[in-house]
């Protein structure tokens, strides 16, 4: 029997759990957890899409399409979002862990466990944002948990606004969490870890900002 990482406890007590993680030889139930979180991600993205969050592009067609066609459009848009939710979960779980694995000398499975907790945080953010978005009428760039509002108020250029809006309290939380875990499970120096973490995150933030600014969905 291996050790099953308690994901929720990992949120509250990263220190205890990371020590446990270091000691364990093998992990059990990891794939089940991965699958569960992928499904959860699909669900959260699905709910978000159900309320139309992110579907400004679709709204443009409201005046052109019939009501039923418009709803169909939104339905498939939602389906696309759900698929993206699955892909997103897979990316968050496997990509950064692969990244860390090459740089830090830690078992890949353990890194996946850490990323599962990270994904849980990110999905929590997404879920909390749904009612906040609907109530305050704000979109991703103006999330109250991000620096996007400050960037907009300061009238930064568009790319910077996207970059800042990608930095949220929850993202910072994940960085801190990753740092805490990695510090325990790896033997690398804290400075190196901070460097790796910030580098990784900055890379992802900039990539996502660039993608946002070119509005990929409009190209189709």
């Amino acid at each position, binding site marked *: 029997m291996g050790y099953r990482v308690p994901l929720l406890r990992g949120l509250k007590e990263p220190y205890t759990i990371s020590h446990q993680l270091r000691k364990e030889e093998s992990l059990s139930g990891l794939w089940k957890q991965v699958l569960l979180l992928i499904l959860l991600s699909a669900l959260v993205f699905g709910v978000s899409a159900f309320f139309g969050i992110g579907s400004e592009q679709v*709204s443009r067609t409201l005046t052109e399409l019939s009501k039923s066609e418009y709803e169909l459009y939104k*339905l*498939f848009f939602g389906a*696309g979002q*759900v698929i993206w939710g699955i892909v997103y979960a897979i990316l968050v779980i496997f990509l950064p862990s692969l990244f860390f694995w090459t740089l830090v000398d830690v078992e890949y499975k353990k890194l996946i466990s850490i990323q599962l907790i990270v994904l849980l945080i990110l999905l929590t953010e997404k879920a909390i944002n749904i009612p906040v978005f609907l109530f305050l009428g*704000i979109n991703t760039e103006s999330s*109250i948990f991000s620096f996007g509002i400050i960037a907009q108020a300061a009238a930064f250029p568009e790319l910077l606004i996207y970059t800042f809006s990608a930095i949220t309290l929850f993202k910072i939380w994940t960085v801190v969490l990753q740092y805490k875990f990695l510090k325990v499970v790896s033997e690398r120096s804290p400075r190196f870890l901070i460097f790796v973490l910030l580098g990784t995150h900055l890379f992802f933030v900039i990539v996502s900002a660039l993608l946002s600014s070119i509005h990929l969905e409009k190209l189709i």
Partner: protein
Amino acid sequence: MTWKIRLLVGAVVLFLACNIILLFLKDDKINRTYHADEWTAVKKQDLLETMPAKGVLAPKEEQHFYYENSAGTFKGFLVEKGDEVQQGTGLFEYSPDDLTLAKEEFQIEKEKLENEQDNLESHIDDLESMQRTLTSAPVEEDQPNPNVYMIQTLERDIYEKELQISRIDSEIEKYEDLIEAADESLLQLTVESEIDGTVKSIKHDLTNPVVTVISNEQKVTGILSEQEIKIATEGMKVFITPEGSNKKINGTVEKILNHPTSEPHAETESRYEFSIVLDESNELESFHGEHVDVRIVTNEVLDTLTVPTEAVKKAKKGHYTYAIQTNGRVDRKKIELGLKIHQTQEVKEGVEKGELVLLERPPFLKSGFPFITSVEPGKLKKKDFEELRKKEILKYTARGFLSR
């Protein structure tokens, strides 16, 4: 809580507060997306302002028939209470006995006069032949005719008799008229109904009106209050709906009595009666006395643009509505209001037919916001799903996949 956590919580709260304050303070700089729940198209329709009233179905006409002594003796009723009658159906009749008797008397009188006239005429003839004899008698020349006096007397006699004849003539004429009148009366012994309807009442004691017939055709009568009578005028269109049915029948306010139904009293509200004629070709197969809902059209605007009242937002400078633009954004539009009826508002200026307007005034909504809408599975139609091409499905899904 350790001081570390306290500091952390404090920092987070400060950050959120800062963001929320900025959200409102730098309102115009912050991108937002408005979640639209409901929207509707601007409609072009007729607007009718109506006033409800209660009505009751009544016979359109009520005809009274009177018994007149002069027309003859009453013989009997031809119908019973509740009988259906058509135009021309006999209701009651006068006895012919008196009339025939009278007619015979006139006849005798007339014949008597005619005999007398004949006698007079033969008498005149006699007198004339006598006169002729006297005139033709030989007379000596230069001698006055001794018969001149006689002739003159005869002439006067003839004249007198002729006068008598002409007097009798007029007498005969009178009796002829009387006989004719009696004949006519004999023909009019039956009193006929003038309308299609039902016998409402019959007075066997012959108090007038002896027979009352109500028409099958119906009208609606109702009561208006003091306020209502000020609004309603004769000639207004009316919609009538029998209670418990959804038929709608058109009518017109025919008459509004300007005196109250009961003696006016300072402490009670006066009520006024009014009646409605049903438009032709609107046969109501209902009973007299059945209650109907009446809606009097007090104001009417034809072919005008309307939006639901929820779509109208009041601001300091006039009224606005939020319209969905083809670019996927909402636009604030200044509108001129017209007639408002229940939940429908006429818009005189500011919107076009078919334009989509938002129904609710969301918090923080401004002009130029993009908007999003929830998926409403109830509005999906299977037919459209089947017609959708694979390429489009892929396109839509890909947009969803790539959208942040």
